[in-house]
Structure formats: C-alpha cells, structure tokens
C-alpha cells in the first residue's frame, strides 16, 4: 500500500508529507520535514524532549503518529523566535544559563510557553508541576524554573 499522504500546518506554514503508519510525528518532523530542533530522548513519553503542540495541546511527538497529525496545527521550537528576535523565554534561558547540553531545551521551551499561554502568572510550584514531564540531567532545574518565572514576569509587563 502507498504511504499516507498527510497535510498539516507546521509553525503556521502548510506542509505535506508521506509517512508509514508506524512513523511517529517525531520521526516525521526530523526525518521527513528536516526540522531537527525537536529532540528524541527516551521515545516512550517519559522525558519530554520531543514536546510539541498539536492544535495547541502540549504532547510528546514520540507518542503521536505522523498520520494522526492530518489537518492539525503543529508548533515546534523552530517557530518560537520571530525572525532573529528570540522569544522572551529563549532570552531568559540564556540570561539565567538555564541549559548546559541543550538536548532538553527545545521541549522545555515549548512546554513552558504552553504553560504561560494558559497561566501568565504561575507560582513556582505550578511551574515545577507543569514541567514535571520534562527531564533535564544537567541543570538541576532551579535555573530553568527561575528563567520561566522571569520570562513570565517580563511578558506580563512587570
């Protein structure tokens, strides 16, 4: 049988791709659409490195089939900065040194943006619970939490 022909939008742009049933959205993003900002960590939904949003809903792209993205809006790290202007979360991650090796960073930025869209003024506890599905083996998390809270403050205009 022919592969599935899927149309979707990726960071606001129309995209089309071919995939087999068992190909995950993560594999499609990286191998078919050459958007390699989204990382594979565990491949089993435990680490959050492959976080993207699908119709605005935060998901692990390793737990979604490419064919399930048909007609949906996918947002990845590549769509976060506007041209050369970084998103406030990205700037604050640099300012707070909230990354070391960087493999978890795209997923954490996408997850953090999803939180701030729903809750512009989260408590530290709310940030920690929301990001509980994103593992980082370098930073010890404190700098990540500080960066998210600082970005939230700036985005609220404070």
């Amino acid at each position, binding site marked *: *049988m022919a592969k*599935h022909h899927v149309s979707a939008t990726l960071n606001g742009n129309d995209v089309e791709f071919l995939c*087999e*049933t*068992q190909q*995950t959205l993560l594999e499609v993003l990286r191998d078919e659409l050459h958007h390699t900002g989204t990382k594979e960590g565990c*491949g*089993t*939904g*435990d680490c*959050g490195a492959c*976080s993207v949003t*699908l119709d605005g*809903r*935060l*998901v*692990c792209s*390793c*737990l*979604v*089939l490419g*064919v*399930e993205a*048909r007609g949906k809006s996918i947002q990845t790290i590549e769509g976060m900065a506007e041209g050369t202007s970084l998103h406030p979360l990205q700037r604050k991650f640099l300012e707070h040194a909230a990354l070391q090796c960087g493999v978890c960073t795209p997923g954490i930025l996408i*997850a953090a943006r*999803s939180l701030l869209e729903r809750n512009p003024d989260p408590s530290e506890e709310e940030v920690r*619970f*929301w990001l*509980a*599905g*994103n593992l980082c083996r370098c930073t010890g998390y404190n700098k990540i939490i500080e960066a998210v809270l600082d970005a939230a403050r700036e985005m609220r205009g404070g």
Partner: protein
Amino acid sequence: MSEILYEAPKTLEAAVALLAGAGGQARVLAGGTDLLIQMRAGRVVPGLLVDIKGIVEMTTIVAENGGFRFGAAASCMELVEHQAFAREWPGVTDAVKLIGSVQVKGRATVGGNLCNASPAADSVPALIAAGAVARIVGPGGTREARVEDIPAGPGRTTLADGEIVVSLFLPPRPARSGDAYLRFTPRTEMDIAVVGAGVNLTLDETGVCTHARVSLGAVAERALLVPEAAAALIGSKVDEGALGRLAAAASAACRPIADKRGTREFRVEVAGVLARRAAGIALDRARRKG
C-alpha cells in the same frame, strides 16, 4: 516488517465494522500513550489501527440526566480542564490528574487507562468508587457494564472481540456527596501507584453516611470494589471507629504481589491507611456540599 494499516472512522458503526473485518488483528488507537510504546517494543504487532478520535460520541463531555457522560477517547487534559465536572467529581479529577505528565495527559484517555487494564491504573479505582457505567458497542450491539466488571487482570479485559468502550457515565450526585482518590508512590509525580484507594460517599442531613463505595488499585490483579469497606462507613458518622473498620476491611481485601516498589505486607498496610485518608477527604468534601 509487515505493513500496518490505519483507519480513522467517523462513526461507531464504521469502527465496529473495521474491527470485525480485521479478524482480531486490529487494535483500537485512542491516545496511543500505551499502545505506541507497546508497538515500538514489539510486544504488539497490529495489522490495523482503528483511530477512534474522530468519532463524536467518543470524544465529547456532556451533562446527561443530571450526571455526566464523557467519551472514552476524550483526553485526560480535556477532562481535568472541565470545571463543572471537576466540581462534581473532585476525586475522579484528582485521579485523572495523576496519569503521567501534562504531555501524556494531552493524549492519554480514561477509556485507554481502563482498557489497558493495568492493575495500577489511577483513574479506575476512582471511577469504580464513583459508580461509573461504561457504554460498550460491538458486533452484538450496545451494552452497558459497571467499570469494576471490565478489567480482568493485567492487560486483560472482559470485553469481547471487536467491542469498544464508547463512553463513561457518572450518575447524578445527591446533596452532601464527596469523593476522593489517593495513591502511594515513592516519588511525588510521574510514578505508578504502589497502592491506590478511591472513596465516594453521601451523608444525610444529620451527617450519617447513607451511601458509600470504596475501591482499591494495585493490590490485586485488577482494581477491586470493596463492599465490606463501604459497609463500615454506611450508617456511621464516619467517626474514628468507622474509619478503623474501613481500614481493616480495605487491608483484608488485598491480595497483592510483592515487587521492587513494595512488599505484600507494605501494600496491605498502606491500603488501609490510604482508604482511611481518602474517606476523610471525601467526608470533608461531602460536608461542604451540604
């Protein structure tokens, strides 16, 4: 490897026909958070995936006859974000909130949690305590079953070949009703229950418990309804004596395995402790709903 077909039917009839036509080689795809991992590991090799998320009855949350009906393929995040549902069923909502990370809950479904049939599934004891009834369709038509009658053992259900859980109905709440679900895990988040306990109760005007259901997870081959534990509460004011009898009945109902996360003795003890604490929370919630 052999090819896996994929279909996304728009109606229950079409989904049932696809499953019936696949001769046992098809798997229902809801959130995929268990199934895709099993496929990746080679434990499940389906010939056909039937993605049921395009079927309206399976994904909507609606008020019905004074209660709630939610689609078995509605995502956990949609359910926990439904404020009217959370007000009415805080214990069920707490249990659903415990299912994995935000990312996992964005895909995972309560129907999948039920049909994956892990004895440690968090939503199942809470649904059993709530008296939830599943609507099931299959080649033989539509039937209804209580949630406690669906899991049969690890990875096994009482569903017949080709049957699908469509939706779950939670009955209307009398005044002064409350429910709660607690679990024990070594970590605070992102972990699998070593023991889970759900309690749902109703009080009369004088504070006497008139109705109770108690359920335990992860202490047997499937989640258990424990009528003896509920009987300890009914007719009491949920006082210390009743809570002690509840805890003893809960512990007595356990037939757990021992594994690296907990010994048999530990699980038996903790089941009583959690049932008692969950009853305390349910009592508090019921009193505030006077």
